[in-house]
């Protein structure tokens, strides 16, 4: 059966507020239609017969929160997901970054890390890895543990290797990891410049200035107002002429900030315009 509608909108709203107050994780501005699907799904998988049961578990059993967060926040990811995006980074963005003495990249919502290892490989192949720092953050500490390890299922390597080649990869993909039974352990030289930390896009603030911010397939879970808030956070954290990369179905188009950014290719990559251009633009109003 589809959507066993165990949940009424008001009840869900109330529960999300309670969780925010009790635990400091605020999901009240996650996109309504899809969070309802997620919560419904938790009820089905964990065999709650009513919404009240789920609520009881969440309120009385703090250890259940982790499980709830994991289900709500969906952490599927891939290396070189959407190869054309990575190709645009390699061909159009990284060469521009070369002009900086130190390159700071923020990967927000990095999940289990497949994305940051992909970036490190590109940085290595464009000879930028020595001067680059990768800040990889996520709301969920347990995915960050995995990201730190850099050990991914060997069964995925065929797909990742294809993605890598389609993204303009120049080497033998298998040179980047050591296979060990069911797992591929990525090389330490890729990890040296990675910094992992929890960061909640809903409640945490800007923590540095970056030349490139990548946040893919995270904003899609947020409602319009929360998206606007997070775009502002990115704008505050991005240097002039810095780049912002989003997921393949995410866009700045419906945001106030759109006018200060310029989409650099058919990929979802925008470049922040120079200050003076922004002034001229806003003077026109």
């Amino acid at each position, binding site marked *: 059966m589809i959507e066993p509608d165990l949940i009424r909108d008001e009840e869900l709203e109330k529960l999300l507020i309670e969780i925010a107050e009790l635990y400091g994780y605020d999901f009240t501005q996650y996109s309504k*239609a899809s969070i309802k699907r997620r919560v419904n*799904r938790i009820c089905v998988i964990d065999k709650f017969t009513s919404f009240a049961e789920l609520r009881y578990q969440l309120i009385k059993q703090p250890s259940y929160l982790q499980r709830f967060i994991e289900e709500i926040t*969906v952490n599927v990811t891939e290396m070189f997901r959407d190869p054309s995006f990575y190709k645009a980074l390699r061909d159009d963005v990284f060469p521009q970054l070369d002009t900086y003495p130190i390159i700071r990249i923020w990967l927000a919502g990095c999940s289990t890390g497949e994305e940051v290892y992909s970036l490190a490989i590109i940085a290595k192949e464009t000879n930028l890895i020595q001067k680059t720092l990768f800040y990889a953050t996520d709301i969920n500490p347990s995915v960050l543990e995995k990201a730190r390890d850099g050990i991914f299922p060997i069964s995925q390597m065929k797909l990742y290797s294809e993605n890598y080649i389609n993204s303009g990869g120049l080497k033998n993909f298998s040179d980047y990891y050591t296979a060990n039974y069911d797992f591929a352990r990525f090389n330490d030289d890729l990890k040296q410049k990675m910094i992992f930390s929890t960061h909640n896009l809903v409640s945490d603030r800007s923590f540095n200035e970056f030349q490139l911010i990548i946040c893919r397939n995270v904003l899609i879970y947020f409602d319009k107002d929360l998206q606007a808030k997070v775009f502002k956070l990115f704008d505050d954290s991005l240097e002039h002429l810095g780049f912002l990369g989003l997921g393949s179905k995410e866009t700045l188009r419906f945001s106030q900030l759109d006018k200060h950014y310029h989409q650099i290719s058919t990929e979802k990559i925008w470049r922040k315009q120079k200050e003076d251009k922004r002034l001229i633009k806003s003077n026109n109003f």
Partner: protein
Amino acid sequence: MDTIFLIGGSAGSLKVLLEVLPELSANLTFPIIIILHRKGYVDSQLVNLLNAKTSLNVIEPDDKEPLSPGNIYLAPPDYHLLLEQDKTISLDFSEKFNFSRPSIDITFSSAVKIFKENTFALILSGANADGVEGLKAVKANNGTTLAQNPITAEVNYMPLQAITQSKIDFVLNPSEIATFINKLNVS
């Protein structure tokens, strides 16, 4: 804009769409959403193909895209398409449903929550049962359900399932679909 017309299809339904689209009125007063299970069409190919067949705008929407009248929205591959209260599109990358993403069931049931009795939902040719639950949800909210006449379908399983398992208001031949849609136009 309080009406929505939803079309769900799988194997054999592209042919029908290519017949229907050219006949659609150039100034529809409501949006159309198409959910296709597609195999082998690279992202932009299908949207270009459909665009070439109609003067209406066929869009593969981004997340948060607002619905506007006269546009045709094609669910992007690998995302479920949901609607929000403010009539914007939410794309959702969660589990497949009925082995499908996009799933017709999910879009139909999400849309009818917003558009209620002004929801029209049509099932075309196809080889699986996706859509049946969605049609039930549409009917439960007093929307209107339609199916392609199975005799005319390249693969009749999907419209047959629709007709036998849910209550269908209209069974249409491909040549009657555009006329039906155009008549919904409010002047």
